[in-house]
């Protein structure tokens, strides 16, 4: 792996991972209504 590549890799995954995790958390919270 080229120098600095690791940081670019982490940054790229954070850019898409943060909104995706927020969206999944919203749906999980909504799904909980099924078990209440």
């Amino acid at each position: 792996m080229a120098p600095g590549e690791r940081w670019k890799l982490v940054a790229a995954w954070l850019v898409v991972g943060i909104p995706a995790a927020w969206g999944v958390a919203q749906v999980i919270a909504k799904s909980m209504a099924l078990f209440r």
Partner: protein
Amino acid sequence: MALLSFLDRDRTIAPAGFSRWRVPPAALAIHLAIGQAYAFSVFNLPLSTLKGITSRAPGDWALTTIGWIFSVAIVFLGLSAFTFGRWLEQAGPRKAMLASAACFGGGFLVAALGVQLHEFWLVVLGYGVIGGIGLGLGYISPVSTLIKWFPDRPGMATGMAIMGFGGGAMIGSPLAVALMERFRTPTSMGVSETFVVMGIAYFVFMMFGAFTVRLPAPGWAPSLPRGEGALRRAPVAAGGDVHVDRAIRTPQFWLLWAVLCLNVTAGIGVLGQASPMIQEMFPGTIGAGAAAGFVGLLSLANMAGRFAWSSASDHLGRKRTYMIYFALGAVLYASIPATGRAGSVVLFVGFYAVIMSMYGGGFATIPAYLRDEFGTMHVGAIHGRLLTAWSLAGVAGPVLVNYLREYQIGRGVAPRDAYSVTMYLMAALLVLGFAANWFVRPVGAEHHFARGAGRDPVPLRDGRH
């Protein structure tokens, strides 16, 4: 000019030391954005009260009319994937992703103008036609690129991207609700402002994908931890490359077209009915809130299935994986009426979650199946042509389910029992899909692309040659 040359296919070739694991985030940026389309229904009610605000007023659009916006978008997804699939193989992923971002983001802006002027045709032109073209370009471009980067795990790679499409609604839906609440005033539903913000935000997000995507350098191969073991272990190695024009004349293409069409038809119709269905099958037990939770759970199963099943297909083999989708899906669909009669919500939800995971898995595994059959040369273009099956299923599935239900209720069948026949019909569709998959055989060598014939320069510039 410098910016334009930056978009060229040759300028997207990865330098030495580039990690291929940076390509999935680029693909996900596109798919998470365009997956918003699945959440368009969140705009249905606000769009139906643009004039009356608190309730429908004369001149407000009917819900059935608004439903056409999403349908047109899905039809144009298929049409643009069909039409531009070949172009994107030549232009490269960066240009295709930029075009996708411009169409998808720009479509929102045109639709915002349509909402502001209360011109329905402008909303359809913006979100349905222009946005739909962006959907088609954005759907196939990253998939084709990932297949080239992950020859050892094509199922996992495409599953990751297509999982993003399933997950896009999870971001798009709460984002739209939050923005509409922010922009809502006593005289406005806040829809046009929301469209503008979402159009710009999605354009920027997709541009991240366009600027970070890379193609493998010529001759590049993944360094595998155990030599070439992983490649040799793959149950179905890629065959020779087949030209897109040749591919659509093979029975394998049309069998896979039927496989996708039947799998999607069986899932999509029932997915749209999920909320009323669980409430009518368990009256007094499941209310509207719990039903919304059920729909959310199905979305999660759909998304997770895209990655899990597609990754599993790298080990099981593509044909065997589809056998599981169709056989297990048919058994589960046929068993659902019994879970309703037994009053078991847990079994009903569990069976449905597995069915939806396989519905998503069907979408995610098909590009790798195409790669096994037709090679990687024109896999994006072939995938684009196969997606017409989705366009047909997107219209046929809901029509079939709704018509059958209305027909039965019209003949005096109780609403709760009317779902039983629908489930048996879905099971029958999956049995047909099982048969179509059964007949898929490797493509004959006579269809393989003759290298050096001077017919197509694209494969020769491709990373794997």
